């Protein structure tokens, strides 16, 4: 007999995934506002921010209610703790998307600094990390979550590469400093999105296997 608690947990997971899909779309639109010089996409991201924030509160309330009323144990407890942290990470990813959209609107007022080569690669990687971290949650798939963790270094390397390249553009031509600086911010926000996806993957591993792999350098005795 399926208990109503299990239905509540499943509903919570579905709401978390729905929020994840909103956030994924926001990141995709924000980056394409830059790549395609499309101001309307940037505005769409800004207009969706409230919906994401409302979902964060709704999901938090669901988690609070289940913790208070069901006193969950073991895997159920780990899922709710992980869901609470994932909820926070998704909302932060939404904020990073808004930051990118705001940068896009400022970048659009100026001529393009350079052809975008690393930015779409970095965006594909970061969006893929968000998508796969959520897929690993749906499937309870530790290996997929682990693969998300491994991709974080690639995103960091691309950010460093973009920083170096944009710095040379700024040193050569002071008239591009404004746009180049905004692109640095975009790269920084994408790198942070990768970090949040990494957090989500770590939470999935905690939920599935009961292992806390955050901060591996700490000696937890």
């Amino acid at each position, binding site marked *: 007999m399926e*208990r109503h*608690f299990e239905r509540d947990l499943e509903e919570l997971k579905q709401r978390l995934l729905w929020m994840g899909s909103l956030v994924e779309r926001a990141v995709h639109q924000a980056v394409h506002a830059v790549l395609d010089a499309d101001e309307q996409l940037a505005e769409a991201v800004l207009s969706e921010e409230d919906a994401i924030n409302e979902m964060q509160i709704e999901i938090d309330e669901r988690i609070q209610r289940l913790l208070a009323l069901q*006193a*969950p144990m073991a895997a159920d407890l780990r899922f709710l703790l992980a869901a609470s942290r994932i909820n926070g990470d998704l909302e932060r990813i939404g904020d990073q998307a808004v930051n990118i959209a705001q940068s896009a609107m400022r970048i659009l007022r100026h001529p393009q600094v350079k052809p975008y080569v690393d930015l779409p690669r970095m965006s594909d990687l970061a969006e893929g990390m968000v998508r796969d971290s959520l897929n690993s949650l749906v499937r309870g798939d530790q290996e997929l979550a682990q693969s998300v963790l491994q991709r974080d270094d690639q995103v960091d390397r691309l950010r460093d590469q973009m920083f170096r390249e944009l710095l040379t553009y700024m040193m050569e031509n002071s008239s591009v400093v404004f746009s180049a600086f905004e692109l640095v911010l975009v790269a920084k926000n994408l790198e942070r999105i990768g970090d949040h996806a990494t957090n989500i993957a770590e939470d999935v591993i905690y939920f599935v296997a009961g292992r806390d792999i955050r901060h591996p350098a700490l000696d937890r005795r």
Partner: protein
Amino acid sequence: MASAAQGKEMASRVVPKVRTGESGTASPVKEATLRFEISELDFFYGPKQAIFGLNLKIPKNRITALIGPSGCGKSTFLRTLNRMNETLRNTKVAGQILLDGQDILQMDVVKLRRRVGMVFQRPNPFPKSIYDNVAYGLRINGYKGRLDELVEHSLRRAALWDEVKDHLQKSAFALSGGQQQRLCIARALAVDPEVLLMDEPCSALDPVTTAKIEELMFQLKDSCTMAIVTHNMQQAARASDYTAFMLDGRLIEHSETPKLFTTPADARTEAYITGRFG
């Protein structure tokens, strides 16, 4: 309370054996001082085996909770620790139970039960006054000292003194259920046991009284080792230091309580504590 002579007549007897374990878990107990060390324990009600090769270490001055579905053998196990099962006919115990390194199956049963007290599911005060309930164990043990002081001390330890100090001669039956249960704890504590066994001590009590008993258990830890059988998972999680999960007469998992309730090692423990069976 059974006498030594009665104890000898009991059907239960020791059957020494040497056998490698087939169930149980690696002990999580880190404390250097153990109160009980149970090895390869089997228990039979007539032909029916209720406990199978159980190994468990119970550390001194800690609370160990026993959980598991009805009929899994946890109460039977608890009652083997002060040989209370011997009051039943046609039972048999095999294996070894050491209390401070001494085999309890070789001890005088009255002396054992003075050291290992028990509190039951339903409060069972004697049909006597509050005072006489607490003094009972002391009197039958021939205590000649200051009875009044020890009665007060025991009632204070059981967090009942303030509520009953002006009515010590009233019948114990005049007390509420929660007060009766604390009186039974005071009665058990009066003979200064080293171990207190509790078989679902709060199952008939309201949440406020349950909280009092749990707080009492916490305070008694300084002077007493406790083992508690409970169906209430939250109570085991709140009140105990170690938790043992039993299923079908076998020890499935024994862990530090926070670990067992957050990241149990065995899928059967996980299924039970998340309410997916049992």
